[in-house]
């Protein structure tokens, strides 16, 4: 059976900076974990329409308050203090997969 694809959405102010960096680092994290996933990056303005289709939302702690109210209540969210810290991103991703996506 084909592995399930994890759909991850990285959200930042305008989809040009931190969300693109998160996408680059996360793609490396997923490869290391052997997880099949797609990472999209977007702006807060466009995130609303895309969030229902994502399995996981990722954003920075600095920015989380700005989008908290727009995130569907049941949607798993990862917030990163330091978006350049691959170890932090990897650890949080691994914990989330173990907890919510054990079929991946």
């Amino acid at each position: 059976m084909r592995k399930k694809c994890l759909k991850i959405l990285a959200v930042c102010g305008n989809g040009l900076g931190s969300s693109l960096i998160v996408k680059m680092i996360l793609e490396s994290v997923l490869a290391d974990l052997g997880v099949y996933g797609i990472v999209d990056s977007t702006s807060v303005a466009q995130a609303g329409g895309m969030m229902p289709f994502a399995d996981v939302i990722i954003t920075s702690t600095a920015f989380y308050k700005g989008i908290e109210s727009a995130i569907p209540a049941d949607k798993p969210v990862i917030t990163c203090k330091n978006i350049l810290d691959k170890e932090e991103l990897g650890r949080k991703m691994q914990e989330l997969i173990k907890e919510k996506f054990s079929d991946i």
Partner: protein
Amino acid sequence: MSKKLIDLLQEDLIHLNVEVNTWEEALAAGVQLLIDSGGVEQQYLDGMIKMIKEIGPYVVIAPGLALGHTGSDQGVHRTCFSLITLKNPVNFGVPDNDPVDVVFCFAAPNKEEHMQALREMALFCCDELNLKAIRTAETPKQVRESLIKFFKEEKKF
């Protein structure tokens, strides 16, 4: 075409030990270098500050490090990067990552053209030793030399 960080971050786009008192002044100093190089209009700074006041300090990406940027529709002429270090660190209101003393600014006319430079900026700043090199550099030339040295070998996240 995607440009390398070292090609965009010329010596006149690096200012060290800039004296500012607030986060707005820090971003203004960084964006001014982009304006002086003809990369963006004043509107770019105004748009960035307005957005931060609306949705929070999204420009702070790591401890001590900010990446000032805003939308492509805010007076952007071409892809450009600048780097300043602050003599006195400033707070952006992000307890985890304040105070900030290294500020990169960039502008991008679309979602692709700045990708390589952004990737290199992130790869470079992932490494604490490189941030230390930026903080202790005495001249813009020294910052560029650190970049060149770091990217002599291929780097991956």
